[in-house]
């Protein structure tokens, strides 16, 4: 891989909650090359959204960050003022809930052209580009849309507007935080296709955050799986589903019902989800893991390279090849 565009190393974040500091991210390292798409997959509390926020410098006040985030070689955590704003313009964010993330009292046109106007683009030219961007995301009647308010658009359309706005900034990296979770499944398919197509066309790097392993696999080159504030596995998207290295990735794939075949029973994972701050010592997944041994609870292994990917499991080598989905069924 060429020099990564985004490189996150040993990132840890704590937030003040009820007078104490809570760990939300405990050890996150990842890299995205120019034009590459990385899926960040996990369940609630895994820290996937917090990772995106840390990268976008959108953590709430009071957050304490250690480790490094480098974008194109610059240290993102140290940026201030104008430099920070310039960085934010080269990293575009697409949020989960477009309804909340677009100012309800300003027109779609204002939303789309605001950034362009700031860069000195003339009003008419900005409007022309906005209409073109809307056409790119599959909204044909752009002139009319520019005059509308957000509440006049459906959720699916508004998310396309959000994507158009992100692309208008001509970013090098797009952070998409569950961009289709609030949408219907048919709309999701379209919106994902749009993101995928435009990203490839323009050679943009993508950090795609989702809870859906299959969805991530469809549009990403590589996938990182998170659990309790740490990355537990990173693998090429094509092989992760069928040949997982970490028991949690395997369990996540197996717990999902299939649409194309009837399973006698789902391979549910026992126990409940834990967030980073309540994670036990040692491997956070150990209490729920079918393959856990005493040593798993004793020490958290580092993320180490294996089979072209990386994994954080003490027994990864012995379990290799034994975690494929059908093996877990019946657990």
């Amino acid at each position, binding site marked *: 891989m060429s020099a990564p565009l985004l490189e996150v190393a040993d990132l840890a974040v704590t937030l003040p909650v009820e007078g104490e500091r809570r760990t939300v991210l405990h050890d996150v390292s990842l890299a995205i090359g120019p034009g590459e798409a990385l899926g960040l997959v996990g369940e609630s509390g895994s820290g996937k959204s917090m990772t995106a926020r840390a990268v976008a410098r959108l953590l709430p006040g009071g957050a304490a960050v250690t480790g490094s985030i480098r974008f194109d070689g610059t240290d993102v955590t140290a940026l201030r003022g104008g430099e920070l704003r310039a960085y934010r313009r080269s990293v575009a*964010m697409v949020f989960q809930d477009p309804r*909340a993330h677009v*100012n309800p009292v300003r027109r779609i046109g204002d939303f789309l052209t605001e950034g362009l106007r700031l860069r000195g683009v003339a009003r008419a030219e900005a409007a022309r580009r906005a209409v073109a961007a809307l056409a790119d995301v599959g909204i044909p009647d752009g002139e009319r849309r520019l005059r509308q308010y957000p509440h006049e658009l459906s959720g699916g359309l508004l998310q396309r507007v959000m994507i158009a706005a992100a692309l208008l900034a001509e970013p090098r990296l797009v952070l998409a935080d569950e961009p289709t979770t609030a949408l219907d499944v048919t709309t999701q398919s379209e919106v994902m296709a749009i993101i995928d197509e435009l990203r490839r066309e323009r050679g943009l790097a993508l950090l795609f955050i989702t809870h859906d392993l299959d969805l991530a696999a469809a549009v990403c080159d590589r996938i990182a799986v998170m659990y309790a504030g740490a990355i537990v596995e990173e693998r090429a998207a094509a092989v992760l589903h069928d040949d997982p290295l970490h028991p949690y990735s395997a369990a996540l794939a197996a717990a999902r019902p299939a649409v194309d075949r009837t399973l006698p029973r789902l391979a549910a994972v026992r126990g409940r989800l834990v967030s980073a701050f309540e994670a036990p010592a040692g491997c956070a997944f150990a209490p729920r893991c079918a393959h856990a041994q005493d040593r798993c609870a004793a020490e958290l292994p580092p993320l180490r390279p294996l089979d072209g990917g990386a994994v954080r499991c003490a027994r990864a080598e012995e379990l290799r090849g034994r975690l494929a989905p059908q093996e877990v069924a019946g657990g």
Partner: protein
Amino acid sequence: MVAFVLRRLALLVVALLVSSFVIFAGLQLAPGDPLAALSGGRSLPPEALEALRAQYRLDDPFLVQYGNWLVHAVQGDLGQSIAQRHDVATIIGERIGVTAQLVALAAVIILVAGVGLGVLAGLRRGPVDAAVLVVTTLLAAIPSFVAAIVLMSVFAVQLGWFPAVGAGDGFADRLHHLVLPAIALAASALAIVARVTRASVREELEREHVETAVSRGLPRRLVLRRHVLRNAAIPIATVSGITILSLIALSAVVERAFGINGLGATLVQAAAAKDLALVQGISLVLVAAFVVGNTLVDLVYAVLDPRVTVGSRAA
């Protein structure tokens, strides 16, 4: 939008009709002989009583009386004040100016100081915010008449910077006379507006769409102006409007405290003297001003918030 305006105007007419009816009925149904009430409890010669009976058509059915009264009221004839021996409309005409000026001056104070302090406190955490919070907490609890006494005691009696009583003549003198009363009238309302403004600004600052604006690398002043303050303006305008409207009635208290011969003070005198025609007339004018003002606030709200098409503002 047009439908909203029409609906709101219809509601205005209904509110005016119902409130005028309540004012009329309430006073007409007052315990005791309406003649005694109309005469303010004075003993009048029989021919005067007869004239009153004829003037108010006391023998007509109640609704007919109300209809007559309303028709006359719309034409500007609000009857005669027995205690003041004058036409009610004339008395109102003479006194309404100073009250309007007083409320307007207080409104300016509220909009400048209240909204200003609120925005300042909303945007700056730390000592500025804490100071505004403490000051407004105190101010909000000071009744207008207490504020009036304190201001009068300090700035009129002790320091002698302002006159203690009266309304003055001519622009400069009138302004000089009305400064203390307007401050007394505005004090607690200003605090309420400041606190709502502060809370609204804070709330908008934490909105997701503001996060979007920040994430796009917009300069802070633009984020504040276009996204935070623009959106916070909606609740701020509504609350400021309602608060200023509440001063219309409260002006009675301040006028009494400063011996200003305005509409409110006259209303209080009339009520104490049971001068019912005058009470009805002034109440009608004040309620009408309040109701029309409320409609204006709703319309401003609709202009500021494109989401409004039907219904009224959120509570």
